[in-house]
């Protein structure tokens, strides 16, 4: 709640000071993130081990079901478990951050109704937990790489770009739903469902080379997550992993547009969150 020394409060908010305010409150962003991280596994028996166990178990089940039972194949030259784990790593990052951002305002409702700070801090700080989980899953991926003796390819230098893209995409979708969630609690029901369906729609358990050449390919590529997941795997597994640059363009364009729209929407609504919460 650190604010400048002179403010004007009026309908529509004080537009010009907002980003400065956000910057002044960076310490609060850090503290809120730290809070979310430190309460994460309080009063659990296994603690942080959950962050390791969950992706490992999901991967094992998916490998068994899709590879052994359903006989899905990865792109030639790539071990199926590595493909799944790569896809799972980035998909889970997206799914977690998206869910947390969407719920961030409601979870912090006690703050919303009692104290002012730029509301954007809440979705921003909620990303921390997802990001730490991502780093842990990524660590597991590296270990599995050693087991399968598949070296990381040089394209890994582009990895940060895709992480950033994932962040932008989850922010774009998440902010929009965070605002709606304040007004309509239905969103809370909808989000787990969207995440569940999303995992099948996106190329997590199968390579998107299976979609190549079909009539629906161009629609399929409109999904910004396709470019992200394929790109992420391409960074790790090299050009053996299928990656259609077209899907990347669509990711960059749709994600940026969605982010801008969501930001405008969020800014427009944030000053009256308390009236609806």
């Amino acid at each position, binding site marked *: 709640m650190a604010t400048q020394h002179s*403010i*004007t409060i009026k309908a529509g908010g004080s537009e010009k000071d907002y980003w400065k305010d956000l910057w002044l409150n960076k310490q609060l962003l850090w503290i809120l993130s730290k809070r979310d991280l*430190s309460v994460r596994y309080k009063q659990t028996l296994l603690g942080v081990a959950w962050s390791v166990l969950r992706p490992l178990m999901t991967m094992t089940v998916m490998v068994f079901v899709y590879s052994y039972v359903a006989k899905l194949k990865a792109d030639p030259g790539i071990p199926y478990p590595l493909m799944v784990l790569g896809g799972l790593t980035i998909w889970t990052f997206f799914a977690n951050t998206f869910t947390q951002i969407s719920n961030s305002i409601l979870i912090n409702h006690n703050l919303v109704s*009692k104290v002012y700070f730029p509301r954007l801090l809440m979705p921003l700080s909620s990303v921390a937990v997802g990001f730490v989980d991502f780093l842990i899953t990524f660590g597991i991926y590296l270990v599995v790489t050693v087991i399968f003796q598949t070296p990381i390819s040089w394209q890994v230098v582009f990895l940060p770009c895709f992480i950033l893209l994932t962040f932008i995409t989850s922010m774009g979708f998440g902010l929009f739903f965070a605002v709606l969630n304040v007004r309509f609690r239905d969103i809370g029901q909808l989000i787990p469902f969207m995440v569940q369906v999303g995992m099948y729609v996106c190329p997590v358990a199968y390579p998107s080379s299976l979609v190549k050449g079909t009539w629906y390919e161009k629609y399929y590529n409109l999904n910004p997550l396709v470019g992200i997941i394929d790109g992420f795997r391409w960074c790790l597994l090299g050009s053996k992993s299928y990656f259609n640059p077209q899907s990347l363009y669509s990711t960059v364009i749709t994600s940026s547009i969605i982010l801008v729209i969501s930001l405008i929407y969020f800014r427009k609504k944030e000053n009256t969150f308390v009236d*609806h919460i």
Partner: protein
Amino acid sequence: MSVIVAENISKKYIIDHQRKNGSSGLRDIVTDTVDKLFRKQEKNGFAEKEEFWALQDVNFSIDKGDRIGIVGHNGAGKSTLLKIMSRITEPTTGQIKIDGRIASLLEVGTGFHPELTGRENIFLNGAILGMSKGEIRESFDAIVDFAGVEKFLDTPVKRYSSGMYVRLGFAIAAHLNPEILIVDEVLAVGDTEFQKKCLGKMRDVSESGRTLLFVSHNLTAIQALCNKSFYFEKGRLIDQGDTTHIVTNYLSKVSQKSLEKHWDNIESAPGNDQVRVKSFKLFPEYQDDLNHIDVRTPINFQFEFWNLVEGASLNLSMHLYTFTGECIFNVGTPAENFGKGLVRGTCEIPGNFLNDGSYVVSMMIVKDTSTVLYNMEEALVFDIEDYRENVTWYGKWPGYIRPQLNFSIRQSEHVVND
């Protein structure tokens, strides 16, 4: 020099009459829209949604170093004003210019996380209230000392007693160093010890030349702390000025407030085909010239209704609630058989019985000592002001009732020192 200037502040809320709770689900919106599409003509302009102005055209300016008390009844717009000034919600129209670092304390321990330790929560809450990490570190020992929680610093606050929790919350807030401090009814919580500390700290703030805005129902505290006051009624700032003047004005308005309800037309009076309410009145036996109800004032109730059924066995049952809805007592009359006509019930609540606060009365007409014929909920609302003699303590007197019992103290034995 004015540090706060408010011009034409208004705040509108939309009240949705159909729904019990404020936030409507998506389903409601969908069904409503479908409803409206197909049954447009039936609704013929009946307002389902009503505009409610929590604040209307409020103008004021506050000088540096002023200590402003804000008084008014529940729903007068005091808290809405504080929320707007704290930037928690925005006004519908108008603007407020504020010069200086502002901190608002609308709740004690905002954002405390139950799973975090006292130490962690000090940093969390401090940051939320706008202190930098350096500032928190500097005052850390003072905060811990003030709250008296040294031993429990590394215990999660969910294990704290409610008293410790509140003390820690206030200790942090007390070490804020703003130029303008906004405080809402925080004194309403916590034990008397805490309230004393809290008031003392606020007096320090006001004496150090900072600007203070203080909302409270505790007029004694307002008189002790504030040099100027604002009086709000129904969303409007109806009077401002010297605290003594405002408080007197407020108290006289309270007692002039209609303490009765009556219906002249028996057809439209509340009730049914067996009974109709005629009137419900409250007669205080004022104990002072100002004509306001305080804790000493005996209060008489008179309730009249028409009995429309010959030979009905009826009795009355009266509930008294606090403003927050807790029932303090329920009293009933014996049942009697009545002929058609007017029936009158009276009841007296003695003086020196209820504590200060706002009270709500509801009256039931009961048939055959078992069937509720008519229940008049929230029939009357009245306030009891504080009154104290020979007490130099301003905190909120705890409890719902404040009876004078035979409680005495005397020296039972002298110890003679040689």
